[in-house]
């Protein structure tokens, strides 16, 4: 049918190898590999009827749910590009994404139905209702069309779609599995949104290895997480540090026995050494894998459990077949141990940002004949290739598993009545997002947060708002975010 490799080939192959095995459990429902493959083919035919042709985009804007997964693969099987968005996307951000991607259709569910109006006259599929099914017509895949786009905050705050290609995703998924090594009998607990690549790639890993996914929702990663892990017999937990901090807290407060949990992976933000040691103390049978990555190449490095002792604080070595090095400002490689912005090369680099050639050229540069991703992260690589991160080269904030631009939050704050200027920084010590504003009027911090919650996604709403008579400024009169850090204490 399709000659080149595409990601749905993995589903087809899994259906052949493990037809009756459960692939995904979600709520009360489950689907086998074979049943999923059949449904995906029929849905792909349905999407073709709806007008999805090779290279066309399908927006999927739902909670983590089975239909979202099946339509994700169906869109790719029809040769299209899937765009999986966070269900809490705000109307303004969504409008920008719709303008950029010009989708053929969109998939919504109850949780996102209120956003339907943003799509104007485009066809909308409601995930809870009957979906279009039809016989799949042969597809000539466009090898240059991305498999899917993952939207991330650009440095200016405009959402940017990272273009992931089928072959690149295959390469990085195989390189990741060479380290994490999921097994056929694994039950992987997904509590991260599928709009976040760490959640999304679990689909590929499970297809490659024939293991079962429990598709949960982020809200379940609170007090009941331990109990779900126990009843579902979860063996692998992909996480972000905030989720693990919650799990640690709950286990101390009300422990649940989790003898089957054998691997915990962490990415998205810095995993504190204290959290690593507490996890090992609470779950002695589980391996902890600190990792480092960014959507622009998905995964950079993974630290193996037997490397934890000798390389505390490291996020591991670069994936096999890829390279990571510290660079000076113009991209010259610096010797081991020297700090600089981290540059990344390898077949896992994404094709760039969707319809944003300038930003693409800034982040993906050709240096001495090699395409290098400028990560924006500062750090060094030791003489054995272990990576140590030390902060961001720009002011991008990583918070609750999201990457966000302070500019976006500051701009939003400045639209509020009475706010003359704003500066946003993260208090890493306490894991709090802090907004400083200046205002001649008497404003209440609580009211500012409430108003911001209407225009920003929940994770981007500051935890702390402080009002100052004036903000510290740099020589050219911009808000001095570095100086604001002094106010955090």
């Amino acid at each position: 049918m399709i000659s080149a490799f595409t990601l749905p080939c993995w589903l087809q192959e899994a259906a052949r190898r493990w037809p009756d095995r459960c692939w995904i459990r979600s709520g009360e429902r489950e689907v086998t590999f074979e049943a999923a493959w059949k449904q995906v083919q029929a849905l792909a035919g349905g999407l073709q009827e709806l007008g999805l042709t090779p290279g066309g985009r399908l927006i999927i804007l739902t909670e983590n749910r089975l239909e979202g997964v099946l339509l994700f693969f169906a869109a790719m099987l029809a040769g299209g590009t899937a765009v999986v968005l966070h269900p809490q996307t705000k109307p303004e951000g969504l409008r920008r994404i719709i303008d950029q991607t010009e989708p053929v259709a969109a998939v919504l569910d109850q949780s996102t139905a209120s956003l339907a109006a943003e799509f104007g006259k485009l066809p909308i599929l409601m995930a809870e209702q009957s979906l279009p099914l039809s016989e799949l017509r042969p597809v000539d895949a466009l090898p240059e069309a991305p498999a899917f786009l993952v939207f991330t905050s650009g440095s200016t705050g405009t959402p940017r779609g990272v273009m992931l290609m089928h072959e690149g995703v295959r390469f990085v998924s195989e390189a990741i599995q060479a380290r994490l090594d999921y097994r056929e009998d694994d039950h992987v607990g997904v509590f991260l949104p599928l709009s976040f690549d760490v959640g999304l790639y679990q689909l590929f890993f499970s297809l490659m290895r024939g293991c079962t996914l429990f598709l949960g929702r982020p809200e379940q990663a609170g007090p009941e997480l331990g109990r779900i892990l126990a009843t579902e017999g979860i063996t692998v937990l992909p996480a972000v540090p905030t989720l693990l901090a919650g799990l640690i807290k709950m286990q101390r407060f009300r422990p649940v026995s989790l003898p089957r949990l054998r691997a915990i992976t962490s990415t998205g933000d810095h995993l504190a050494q204290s959290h690593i040691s507490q996890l090992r103390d609470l779950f002695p049978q589980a391996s902890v894998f600190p990792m480092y990555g960014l959507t622009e190449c998905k995964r950079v490095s993974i630290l193996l459990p037997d490397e934890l002792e000798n390389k505390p604080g490291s996020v591991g070595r670069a994936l096999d077949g890829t390279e990571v090095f510290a660079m000076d400002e113009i991209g010259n490689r610096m010797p081991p141990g020297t700090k600089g912005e981290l540059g990344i090369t390898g077949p896992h680099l994404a094709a760039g940002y969707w319809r944003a050639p300038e930003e693409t050229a800034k982040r993906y540069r050709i240096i001495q004949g090699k395409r290098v991703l400028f990560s924006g992260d500062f750090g060094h690589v030791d003489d054995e290739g272990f990576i140590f991160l030390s902060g961001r080269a720009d002011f991008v904030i990583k918070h609750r598993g999201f990457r966000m631009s302070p500019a976006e939050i500051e701009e939003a704050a400045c639209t509020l009545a009475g706010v003359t200027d704003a500066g946003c920084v993260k208090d890493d010590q306490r894991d709090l997002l802090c907004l400083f504003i200046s205002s001649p009027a008497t404003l209440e911090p609580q009211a500012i947060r409430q108003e911001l919650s209407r225009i920003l996604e929940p994770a981007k709403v500051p935890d702390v708002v402080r009002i100052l008579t004036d903000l510290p400024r740099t020589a050219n009169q911009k808000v001095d975010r570095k100086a604001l850090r002094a106010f955090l204490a």
Partner: protein
Amino acid sequence: MTNDLSTGLQDILRPKLRFLGPHEPVPMDRNLGELGLDSMATIDLLMDIESGLGVSIPDEMITVDTFSTGDHLLEVIRKASS
């Protein structure tokens, strides 16, 4: 006693609802997630309820549904304390 529990719960909830206006009463029928309660804050909420109101919420009641609204939560607390 009934009103005490409700008032006590509202006092515990208020500082955790990041998106609630400064002088608004805690809307007990609204979705707590929409009022800014995230999964981490839900863990703190559970701990504060148990220590502050002197109840122990049974494991099987610790669900997303229980923490969906203040009213739901109050109902579960009442059951647990009776």
